[in-house]
């Protein structure tokens, strides 16, 4: 092989970056379109919570007026932002599951040998996953509308940036976790050890003041849970408001998870140094 062929390219044009982004997003979109059951299950999960769980608990969990709400709301209305975040949480974990699958199947190797920087490849992957999760959330909101979940019209627009940020955060978390998983079978543990604790120890299903009444310790756990802040960021944005603390926490967590994921996927520095047993290194 000649010497110039071994030379690593030093810079890429924006067009080249776009080709890469397009490739990754398109692949994710195709995968999403072809896996219809994945889309349906992503919708059915929150709808089951909305139609069954919320109906059962409607009378039990009376909701007092807390910001951003200005009047009494039904329990269904309260848990809607939590369910939106749940869609993104599952989607984030699912896309990281797909990364484990990609790694086992060898697709990840193809991706990571791309000459473009690794951080860029991972960011593209993350963006693609977030876009898919946002589509799922809007589909859920459309169905919820027929269930009398009617946030202000402007809320459908103002929630978009919040969804983008929370989608990135949860996607980055999934990516960070997936970097530490060697085999697809291990992913069930993630469900039990990450998704459920994150979801239940948050303000998704019950306001934190109610958690405080039951268990002060759990209240503090909930407060330190970034998922709580993702839910609250979505909740406020859905009503055209900004919860600055949640924004800061979600923004900070996104950055931290993203950096962690990039380091973890770096074969020379991160957790990825695991030998040949399924690792991409």
């Amino acid at each position, binding site marked *: 092989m000649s010497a110039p062929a071994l030379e690593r390219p030093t810079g890429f044009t924006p067009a080249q970056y776009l080709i890469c982004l397009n490739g990754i997003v398109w692949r994710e979109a195709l995968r999403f379109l072809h896996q219809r059951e994945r889309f349906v299950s992503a919708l059915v999960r929150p709808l089951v919570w909305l139609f069954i769980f919320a*109906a059962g608990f*409607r009378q039990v969990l009376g909701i007092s*007026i807390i910001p951003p709400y*200005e*009047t*009494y*709301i*039904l329990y269904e209305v309260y848990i809607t932002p939590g369910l939106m975040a749940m869609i993104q949480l599952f989607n984030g974990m699912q896309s990281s599951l797909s990364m484990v699958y990609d790694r086992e199947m060898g697709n990840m190797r193809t991706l990571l040998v791309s000459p473009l920087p690794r951080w860029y490849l991972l960011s593209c992957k993350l963006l693609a996953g977030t876009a898919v999760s946002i589509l799922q959330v809007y589909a859920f909101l459309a169905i919820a509308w027929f269930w009398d979940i009617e946030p202000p019209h402007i809320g459908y627009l103002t929630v978009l940036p919040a969804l983008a940020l929370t989608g990135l955060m949860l996607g980055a978390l999934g990516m960070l976790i997936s970097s530490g998983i060697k085999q697809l079978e291990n992913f069930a543990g993630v469900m039990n050890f990450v998704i459920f604790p994150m979801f239940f120890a948050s303000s998704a299903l019950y306001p934190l003041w109610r958690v405080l009444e039951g268990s002060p310790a759990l209240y503090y756990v909930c407060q330190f849970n970034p998922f709580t802040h993702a839910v609250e960021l979505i909740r406020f944005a859905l009503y055209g408001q900004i919860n600055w603390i949640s924004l800061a926490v979600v923004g900070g967590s996104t950055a931290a998870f993203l950096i962690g994921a990039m380091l973890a996927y770096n074969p020379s520095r991160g957790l990825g140094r695991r030998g040949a047993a399924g690792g991409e290194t």
Partner: protein
Amino acid sequence: MRNESRISKLVSRARRSAKRCSADPGPFQALRSVTAPALQRTTPQQRRAALRPGHDSIAKAGHRVTERAMTRGVIAATFILSLVVSTPASAYVAYVSNEKSNTVSVIDTDTWAVTATIKVGQRPRGIEFTRDGRFVLVAVGDDDTIELIDAATHQIVDKLPSGPDPELFVQDQSGKTLYVANENDNTVTIIDLEKRVRTGDVQVGVEPEGMAISPDGKILINTSETTNMAHFIDTATRQIVGNVLVDSRPRFAEFKRDNSELWVSSEIGGTVSVIDPGKREVTGKISFAVPGMRREAIQPVGIAMTADGATAFVALGPANRVAVVDAKTHEVKKYLLVGQRVWHMAFTPDEKYLLVTNGVSNDVSVIDVAAQKVFKTIQVGELPWGITIAPK
């Protein structure tokens, strides 16, 4: 050469347009006639040529029209801006009687905030503005009187001689006579509002509460909680001329503005009886069923009807809901979630909003009447009961 002829055609067309402009007042039409043919279909060189000194008239005409359009635009923008800035100025004030804290909360409907709290007698319940809007009448049951609050100064200026434990009352159309239901005395007291003296009593059923007066002012309705009747009282003779049996514990009565129907809510019965005032008989009953709510928890109390008689709102007490009813078909259209133990209600004079009192949760919920949605809840005193609204 061809260019020149095109330009000359262009110029003459533009001149004609300019003439039309000076004759025709429509700025947009004029602007379109100048700018479209003269400027848009030309090359940049032609456009520059058209604006040279030889083509002053076109330039001036265009300029004049543009100026005129701009002036109108500025005026329109200012008008729209002023509308936007002044839109929320509905300028009403709501007075809410707080049964337990012995106060009246004053709510500004521009800001939806409590702007004053007035200390009144014990157990204030029935509350209403006088017809001239100068005073607020509030029945203070445990003090056995009706107090007059000056709406301007928020001071209690006088007391009216009701019977023992006055609860609800109604004024005649002229605002000269007040009819008061005295819960503990089984009577309706008649008070001359101008002289502020008691002019008579009518003996009614046990625990009188709901009061309504027919639109023609000839018939006064009183409902008695324990007798379960709506009593029809002739206002001229002050005699009961009819009784209609309704469901258990009738709380409130409301006439349609066209006198075609009288609605009486029954708290324990859980229904609203629709009565034909002419025949004095129940012609229909409205029942309520809130999904997931026990039937006993659905206790209709306050009723409010829009002036056109199309829509009615019924407070359902401990069901924490206000029912929206099609007043023509008597069909319940939807239930709006409000605070706990919703009791009485009042429209703003423009009927844009309906305010309801929530006794147990100590607040007042605001309903957007057109959207049929609750959009705000305001904390007031303890056990809010009655509400009245008038322009500031």
